[in-house]
C-alpha cells in the first residue's frame, strides 16, 4: 500500500485499496470490456443507420472532418481582420491611428494620406497588420470610431514560411468579406507571397 493517500474518496473505485473483486481482476476486466463493447455496438448501429438506411441525423462518431467540414464557430470569434469598404470600394478607415495606438502588440502600421473627397479628412495609404505579432485581443475593433476594422472573416488558417509574409497589407485586408452563417469563411484564405507558386 505504498500509494495509499490519506484523503481517498468514499467510492471504492477511487480507492487505492483493492478489494477482493478488483484483485481477482477477471470480473473487473469483464466490466470494462462490457463498457467498450457497448460503445462499439451502439456506434456500429448508428453508423449502419447512417450509411445503409440514410438516416443523416444518426452519427456514430463525434469527429469533425476538419478540412471538409468545420465546427460552427461562435459569432463572437475573433478571426482574421478585414478593412470595411465604402460603397465605392475605398476603405472606410480615416487613418485616425486609434487602433495603432491601442494595439498592445504594436502590430498595426498606418501611413495616412489625404482623401480626394474633401468631406473625408484622411485615408490610409498603408495599413499593415503583422499577424506574427497580433495577439487577437480585438482592441483595434473596439477602438475604431468608424467601424472600419472588424475581425469577422472566420479565417483562422494563415501561415507563412517567413516572418515578412505574415504582414498583411491594406489591399489584402480590404478584399476580405465577413464570414457566412455558422462562421464559414466566404473569402479564400489570403496566401502570402512566399507561398504562391512561382
Amino acid at each position: 500500500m505504498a500509494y495509499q493517500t490519506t484523503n481517498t474518496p468514499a467510492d471504492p473505485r477511487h480507492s487505492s485499496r483493492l478489494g477482493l473483486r478488483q484483485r481477482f481482476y477477471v470480473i473487473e476486466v469483464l466490466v470494462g470490456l462490457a463498457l467498450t463493447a457497448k460503445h462499439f455496438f451502439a456506434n456500429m448501429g448508428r453508423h449502419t443507420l447512417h450509411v445503409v438506411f440514410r438516416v443523416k441525423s444518426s452519427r456514430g462518431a463525434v469527429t469533425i472532418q476538419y478540412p471538409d467540414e468545420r465546427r460552427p464557430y461562435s459569432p463572437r470569434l475573433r478571426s482574421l481582420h478585414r478593412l470595411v469598404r465604402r460603397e465605392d470600394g475605398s476603405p472606410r478607415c480615416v487613418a485616425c491611428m486609434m487602433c495603432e495606438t491601442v494595439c498592445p502588440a504594436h502590430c498595426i502600421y498606418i501611413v495616412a494620406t489625404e482623401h480626394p473627397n474633401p468631406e473625408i479628412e484622411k485615408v490610409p495609404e498603408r495599413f499593415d497588420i503583422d499577424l506574427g505579432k497580433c495577439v487577437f485581443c480585438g482592441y483595434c475593433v473596439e477602438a475604431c470610431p468608424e467601424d472600419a476594422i472588424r475581425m469577422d472573416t472566420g479565417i483562422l488558417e494563415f501561415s507563412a514560411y517567413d516572418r515578412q509574409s505574415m504582414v498583411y497589407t491594406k489591399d489584402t485586408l480590404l478584399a476580405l468579406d465577413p464570414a457566412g452563417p455558422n462562421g464559414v469563411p466566404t473569402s479564400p484564405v489570403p496566401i502570402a507571397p512566399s507561398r504562391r507558386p512561382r
Partner: protein
Amino acid sequence: MSGLALDLLLQAIPVGFVMFVVLNFGGLLTWVERKQSAIMQDRIGANRAFIPVLGFRIRILGLLHPLADAVKMLTKEDFTPARADKLMFKLAPFVSVFFGLAAFATIPFGDTLQIMGREIQLQAVTLNVGILYVLGMISLGVYGLMMAGWASANNYALLGGQRAAALMISAEVAIGASIMGVVMVYGSLNMQDIARGQGLPLLPQFLGGWVPAWGILTQPAAFILFLTAGIASTKRIPFDTPEGESEIIGYFVEYSGMKFGMFAMADFLETVVIAGMTTALFLGGWQVPYLQASGFVFPWGGTVALPHLAVVGMQVGAFLTKVVVMIWLLMLIRWTLPRFRYDQAMRLGWLALFPLSILNILVTGLVLLAVGKP
C-alpha cells in the same frame, strides 16, 4: 496425371488456403485495429487514403490505408546502425514473421474434403503433435525479438528483447499448462481430433445430447487462462512490455521501414494464430452445432441432408466466422485494458496463470474420473 502429382496438387489446396487466409487476415488487421478502436472511442478512424478515379476519390472505408502503409514502409530509408550485427539485424524480422506464419499450419479449418476419389484433411499439415507444433512455433517467434534486441547495439533494444524473452517464458508455461486440460478431455494432441471431439454431445446422460462438447464448456477455466497467456504471447497491450511504443521503447527501436513493419505484421499474425488456436481448442473449431458429415442431425429427431461440398463450405465458414469473432474480442481487450507493469505481468504469469493451470489439470483429472469422457 500420375497419382503423386495429383496428391501434391490436392495437398496444395489446404496449404494455399491457410497461407491466403493468414496473410490476408494479418494485413487486414491493421485496418481492423484502426477502425475498431475508432468505433469503440466514438471516432471515425483512418479514412483519408484515396485513389482518384475519374475525379472521384475512392476511399472504401479506409481499406486503402494498409496499401498506403506498405508503400510508405517500402520507400522509407532502411537504416542499419553502424555497430549493429548486420546479419542478425537483417534476419530478425524475417524470423519473427516466419514463425508467426508457420504456426497456423496444424490448425484445422474443416473436416475431411472428399475430392477426386481422395480424402484431404483440411489443415495445412496433418500432425499428431499439432498442439506442440503450434506452441513450438509461437515460442520460436521470440527468437526474432531477442535477435533484434541483441543485434541492434542499443541498450534500450537489448532491454526490450530481454523483457520479451522473460514475458514469453512466463506466458509459454501458462499456455502449455492450460492446454493440458483440453488434451486430457479429448485425449489427443492432434488438433483435428480435438476439433472432431468437440462435435460429440456433452454429457448425454444428463443433457440428452442437446449441447455440443465445445472446449469452452468442458474447460471454461482453461479458456480464460489460455486466452490471457495467449494475449501475453502476442505481446500486444495489455502485455506490451517488450514494445511499449510510447515510452519505454523496445527491441525494435533501431528498426525502420519495412523491417519495422514486419515486426508489427508478426504481432498481427500471432493474433490470428491465437484466435485460430482458441477457436480450434475451445470454440469447437470448424464444428457447426448439429452439423454432421451427412447434414444436420437435430437432437429432437429432425434431419436435413446436405451435399458434401455444402457441409465442408459451412464448416470452413463457421471456422472463419469464429476466428473473426475471436480477433474482434482480442482487439476489444487490446483497446480496453491498460498495460501491465513488467513486474505485474511476471507475477500474473508465474503466480496466477501457472498455478491455476496446474489446479485446472488436477480438477479436470478428478472430474474425468468421476464423469468419464464426453
